[in-house]
Structure formats: structure tokens, C-alpha cells
């Protein structure tokens, strides 16, 4: 059930109505049943994996809290982590590791005896395992109390708006809200949530899905495209993935907000960043903060030697790349980002905010954007060879300035969508939230929402693609 579908619209309306019609004590049940239904609309049998992990982490956390012996606490924490990472490893990385083993064994001319698994990745696996692991670690660290109600804990893991593609929530925030369960129907929450959902839907169906048409036509024919065509396609992919993912996040956050739940912001206009460090404070914030809190700091963070700090940074981003997918392309993507961050740290680069000169800011933004776009080539290309072909062909001088437009009407729609996106994000959202807009400019927000829905009807791609991050 995709967010940009009529099924989801009816599902969301029904669940929200039932949520407020029923007494608060029944709400967790309604949401849990709805979340189960939502998850099972993809591959029903995989809910058993989710139930297994929920039970494992629920009981592990209880035991960790109740235990007095440190060694037993650690043991149960390890069991929880192994359970989650084990499931992730089997479903996501087994065939990838097997492929690499095959290549290594070929050198020694030994046949690989390990069979391949013919399995589909459970949707949202990478997200809910990380969310669950953060819970057990937080319980172990004493940051949050173990949840004693299995249903509430299950709902924390399975809360349908953020179940399949985040934001990766923390128990200190979402779990506490779900426990309280006393949200009253609130006009401000409904309007703000609705506005967020509209904005997210615009980003997905108007910008991301139309951009995908052009990007796919170029990246899927890497051999014949070159010069500025490849640069344009990569820039457009940057917008595609941003709008696809942040659009999903906005719809998820908006859907939760309508019911009164506050989820974490996942993106804050990242392409206006003036350094890679700043970019990673603005992009997929729930993942980057997770990696910082549970991996980077656990490895020692920046409290050790400088060399170890850079290595930790590099390793964290490398694993972050691997989290996205079982492919060397994602590893390279992560490694490049790790390298950028390490170099910035080494050079002690910090954009001086007192530099108000718009030209200087623009140059930094442009450079940062293009450095990120270089990593996106590996993210988008199907294979490593394709990525290299795309990059190599950029430097084909003959016909460099001869862009392949394909369909002028599609390109016009793309430019239209991206223009609205950039104007609204830069001039409005850069310093304001939807809460602020609703409180201070309610009529303008109403008109803006009306304009968005008209634009979605006229420009939205109706048979669009699945959200990119669903595959992670």
C-alpha cells in the first residue's frame, strides 16, 4: 500500500476516524491492527519476522532492566542485537556475501558449495531493526524504561506511518507518546498534518516521479549518453531521491501529526548545505543521528586520536552505505561520504556563518551539491560498471553541450516542479515550519494547499514508481 495511492487515502481516513471515535484505552489496539494490515498489504507472511523481533526485543529489554548482574544484561543486549542483525544479514546480505565468496573461491578454482537464497527483502526491515536496536540499547544505557505492555511496544515498532521507510524514531520520543495515548482531536494538528501530507505528496508525485522518467531513460542507457546529459541526469536524480524520500517522510510525519503524534524531522532542505558536514546534519537526520549515537560514539567517536576519529567516521559512513543496500555501489557511496567528512574534519573546515556574501554562499552550496551528486552516481547506477560509464562519458568532449532532452513536455514538467520546490523551500521553509505557517499565516497556507492539490491533479504522475527507500 503506497502512500501515493487511493488505498492509502481510504485506509488513513478510516484509521484516523476510528482512532478518535474510540476511547483512548482502545486506541493502541486500533493502531496496532491497522499497522498489521498495512504491513501485510506487502508480503503478509513476513509479519511473522516482525512478530519474532518484537517478542525478542520486548523480553530482552525487560530482562535487561530487571537484571542486576552486568554480564547478564550484556548477554541479553547481545542476543537482541544478534537477533536483529542476524535477520538483516540473512535477508539482505546473504546473497551479496555469497556472491563475493564465489568470486574469491574462483581465484582458487574451488566451486562455491553454499546455495543462494531465493528470498525477497521484507519491506522496512532496515528501518524497524534499527529502531528496535536503539530501544534495547537505550534500555541498557538507562535512557529509557523498558516497556511492560507488549501491545504498546509492538505498536512502537510497527506504527504504520513510519514502519516501512522511517523516520527511525527513538523510544524516548515516540514510545512515550504512544504510552500516553491521550491525544485529543486538535484542529491545529489536523491542518498542520494535512499540509505536511500535501507537501510530501507534491514532492513525490510531481517532482520525484516525473524526474524519474528522465533519469531512468539516461541511466538505463548509460552507453549512449554523454557530456552534459549525464550531468543533468545526475542533478535531477539528486532531486528525485530527495523528493521521493523526504516526500515519504513528510507524509509519514503528517499522518502521525493528524492523530497528534510528533515525529522527528527527517530532512531540513539539505541541498542548501555549504559543507558535507552540514549536509549530513540535514539529510536523513533520523539515520545519521542513529549512526552517530549507536555506532560512531560506540566506536569512540572523536574522543580518541585524530587518526582513529577519521577511521571511525569513515567506517560509520561505510556501514551507513551498506545499510542502504547489499551492493558495492552502496559501499562506495558510503566510503565517498566518509572520505568527504574525514577530509573536512582534517582541514577543520567550517563555513563561517558571518560570511553573508550571497555569491560566496552560492559557490559553497554549488560545490557541496556537486560533491554529493558524485556519490549519487554510484547510488543510482545499477552496477559499478554502469557508474563508471556514466562518469567516464561526462568527459566525452564531442557533443558535450548537446543534451539529450528525450521528451520536452516531461522536461518542462520537471522544471516546473523543481522550481516550485526550490522557491518554497528557500523562501519559506528555510526559516519556518508548517506549524509556524499555520499559526501566523493560516489563509496563505490554505491557499497554498489548494494550489498544491490542483498541481498534483494536473502534474502528478498517476502510475508512479514505488518509493526508492522501500527497497532498503
Amino acid at each position, binding site marked *: 500500500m503506497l502512500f501515493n*495511492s*487511493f488505498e492509502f487515502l481510504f485506509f488513513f481516513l478510516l484509521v484516523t476516524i476510528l482512532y478518535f471515535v474510540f476511547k483512548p484505552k482502545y486506541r493502541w489496539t486500533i493502531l496496532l491492527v491497522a499497522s498489521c494490515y498495512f504491513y501485510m498489504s506487502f508480503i503478509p507472511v513476513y509479519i511473522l519476522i516482525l512478530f519474532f523481533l518484537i517478542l525478542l526485543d520486548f523480553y530482552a529489554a525487560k530482562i535487561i532492566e530487571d537484571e542486576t548482574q552486568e554480564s547478564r544484561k550484556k548477554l541479553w543486549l547481545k542476543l537482541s542485537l544478534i537477533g536483529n542483525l542476524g535477520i538483516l544479514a540473512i535477508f539482505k546480505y546473504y546473497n551479496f556475501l555469497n556472491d563475493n565468496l564465489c568470486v574469491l573461491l574462483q581465484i582458487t578454482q574451488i566451486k562455491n558449495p553454499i546455495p543462494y537464497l531465493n528470498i525477497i527483502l521484507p519491506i522496512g526491515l532496515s528501518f524497524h531493526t534499527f529502531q528496535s536496536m536503539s530501544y534495547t540499547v537505550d534500555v541498557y544505557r538507562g535512557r529509557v524504561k523498558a516497556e511492560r505492555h507488549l501491545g504498546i511496544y509492538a505498536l512502537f515498532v510497527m506504527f504504520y506511518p513510519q514502519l516501512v521507510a522511517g523516520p527511525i524514531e527513538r523510544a524516548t520520543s515516540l514510545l512515550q507518546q504512544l504510552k500516553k495515548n491521550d491525544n*485529543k*482531536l*486538535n*484542529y491545529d494538528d*489536523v*491542518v498542520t498534518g494535512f499540509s505536511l501530507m500535501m507537501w510530501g505528496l507534491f514532492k513525490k508525485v510531481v517532482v520525484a516521479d516525473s524526474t524519474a522518467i528522465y533519469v531512468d531513460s539516461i541511466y538505463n*542507457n548509460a*552507453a*549512449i549518453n554523454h557530456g552534459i546529459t549525464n550531468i543533468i541526469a545526475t542533478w535531477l536524480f539528486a532531486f528525485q531521491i530527495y523528493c521521493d524520500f523526504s516526500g515519504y517522510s513528510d507524509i509519514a510525519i503528517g499522518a502521525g501529526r493528524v492523530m497528534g503524534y510528533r515525529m522527528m524531522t527527517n530532512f531540513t532542505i539539505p541541498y542548501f548545505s555549504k559543507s558535507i558536514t552540514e549536509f549530513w546534519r540535514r539529510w536523513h537526520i533520523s539515520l545519521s543521528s542513529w549512526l552517530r549515537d549507536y555506532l560512531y560514539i560506540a566506536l569512540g567517536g572523536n574522543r580518541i586520536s585524530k587518526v582513529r576519529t577519521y577511521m571511525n567516521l569513515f567506517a560509520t559512513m561505510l556501514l551507513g552505505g551498506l545499510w542502504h543496500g547489499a551492493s558495492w555501489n552502496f559501499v562506495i557511496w558510503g566510503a565517498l561520504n566518509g572520505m568527504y567528512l574525514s577530509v573536512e574534519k582534517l582541514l577543520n573546515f567550517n563555513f563561517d556563518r558571518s560570511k553573508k556574501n550571497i555569491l560566496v554562499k552560492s559557490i559553497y552550496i554549488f560545490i557541496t551539491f556537486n560533491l554529493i551528486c558524485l556519490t549519487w552516481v554510484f547510488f543510482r547506477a545499477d552496477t559499478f560498471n554502469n557508474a563508471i560509464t556514466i562518469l567516464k562519458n561526462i568527459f566525452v568532449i*564531442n*557533443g558535450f553541450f*548537446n543534451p539529450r532532452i528525450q521528451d*520536452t*513536455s516531461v522536461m*518542462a*514538467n520537471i522544471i*516546473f516542479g523543481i522550481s516550485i520546490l526550490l522557491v518554497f523551500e528557500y523562501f519559506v521553509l528555510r526559516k519556518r515550519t508548517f506549524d509556524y505557517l499555520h499559526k501566523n499565516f493560516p489563509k496563505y497556507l*490554505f491557499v497554498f*494547499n*489548494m494550489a498544491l*492539490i*490542483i498541481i498534483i*491533479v*494536473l*502534474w*502528478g*504522475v*498517476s*502510475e508512479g514508481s514505488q518509493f526508492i527507500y522501500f527497497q532498503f
Partner: protein
Amino acid sequence: MELKKIIHYLLFFTLLFIGINYILSKGLSYLYEHNLNGQSGGKINYFMNMSPHPEVLVMGNSRSLYQIIPDSFSYTSFYNLSHAGMDDCYQLGLLHYIVKMKKKPNILLLQIDPEFYINNTKHFVSKDIQHLKYYYDKDELIQEEINNIGMYEKLKNAIPLYKYNGRTISLLKNYKTTKTNAIDNNRGFVKIIPSKFDSLNTVISYNSRAPLVSKKFSIDKAKYLLKIIEICKNNDIRLICFTSPHYKYDISEYQIIDDNLNTIFSKHNITYYNMDIDTTLTNKIKSPIYWKDYMHVNLYGASIVSLNFNKKLIQLNATDAGQN
């Protein structure tokens, strides 16, 4: 109190949306009906407004749009109503509408692609028919085929503005072209201007083409062709099917498809001209300088293809009988 405010907000929003929808759709409908240019309905309008309407019509995708030059044919009254990227279902819907509006041609030259009939899905439903959604309320076959796409198509098409989904900017641009009398009068044909990269693109695109996933024939996909044949029979339209040439063609890859198509055509007495097996033609255009990519000839190649096709049609008219 909160509930009341929310209901007021949603009600006002919905009513305003309905109102704006109605006004905007009237405006866009005016533009659509007066547009005579481009794939966003202008070409169809241009054809519909022709008086007298053409005796001979070419329909198909880009492999007839860019390759069949009306001026190269002996017929005085000839129009190329091809639309790039559109499959058989689109052609079926368009033909049905044309016949309904009493604009049927005497001869229909229909471009078909053997690749389309490859069986690579369990159940095929055409999405290209959506490009005719402007006619959703005007033609029952178009409505039926669009509804086949999914259970929410009726809901989407109930919104008047949805008819213009994906084509608003092109509609505005093409309307402006119409108003400034800047329409190309090539009788529907669109030129691919040759460029110095054509040869290289052709060879690279041919070498990097995806392998066939299947060589089986899809009866599911052939249903649109069968419906086109039926419409032509019922309305006294002489149907001649053809396949434009490819840069290189390995008949063995498509043998099963070809055999099945020939069976259909034989059964219904339909003339089928597969240019890929006409060595007289393919020898003339075997150099990559005639090609844009491995599926489309450029303007040089289109001249040769069209002249050759004209000769073939003259032969067919001379031998008559509608046989292959």
C-alpha cells in the same frame, strides 16, 4: 468545537476544490479543443478538422511517426496520425473514436512492433490508453480500456481536471503554436534531423540493447490488434499492417512472434508488410548514416523507407486481393 472547525475547514476546502476544478477544466477544455498541434491532442484535432478527411491514415508509434513521409506517397489525401511511444491499445482507442466521429479513412496503414507481442508478463494491461483520457467520457471503448487499468480509474477520471494530467504545459505551448500559425504542415510527419552523432548512437544503441526476456507470443497483447481488425472489417476500412525496419534484424529471434502474427493476418485476410525481411529496402539503408538509433531511421532513411513503402503499396493495389 475542534471537530466543528475541522469539518468546516475540510468542507470549505472540498467545495473550493470542486469550484476551481470546474472553472479550470472549462478553460483547459477550450484550449484543448482549439489546439491543432502536438501530441497533447492537437494532432487528433487537426485530423478531425480536416475537410475532406484523409483517405489514407497512418497510425502507430514513433516508428511510423518519424519514418512515414506523406509527401512520398502517391495518395493525395494522406495523414500520419502516429503518436510516439503509444502501443496498440492507444491505436485501438483512437481508431474507435475516429470511426465514431465518422472520420474513418478508406485505408489504414498500421505500424506494429513484433517486440510488443513478446510474452513477458502474466497479464498485460495497457497504460498507454491513459493518454486518451480526454475522451474518457466521449468514447465507451476508451473508457472501458482505461477502467481496466485499475479500480480507481473511475474515481480519478471523475475529477474533470484529471483529463489534462501531465499535459498542461505542452497544451499551453501547443495552443500558442496554433494561435501563431506556426504549425508544421508535414501532414503529421515529424522529422528527425540527422546529426553527426547518429551513426555512433546507432551502433552503440544496437550493441547495448537488452536481450529478449522471452520469445513467446502473447495472446493477451494481440487482443488489441484483433479488435482493430474487427473495427476495420465492420467499417469497411482496408487495413494494411507494416513493421518499420530495424538497423539490424535477426529473424530467428522473432520467428515465433512473426509466425503468430502471420497466422492472424492470414486468418483475417490482412496485408502485412514486414520491412525487416524486405532485402531490397534493408540493403539500401544498412549504413548507420541513415539511422538515429537502432530502431529509428533519420530523415535520410525516412525518405528511402517511405518511397519504398509507396512502391509496395502500388504493387499491392495492383495485385489487389489483400494478400501478403
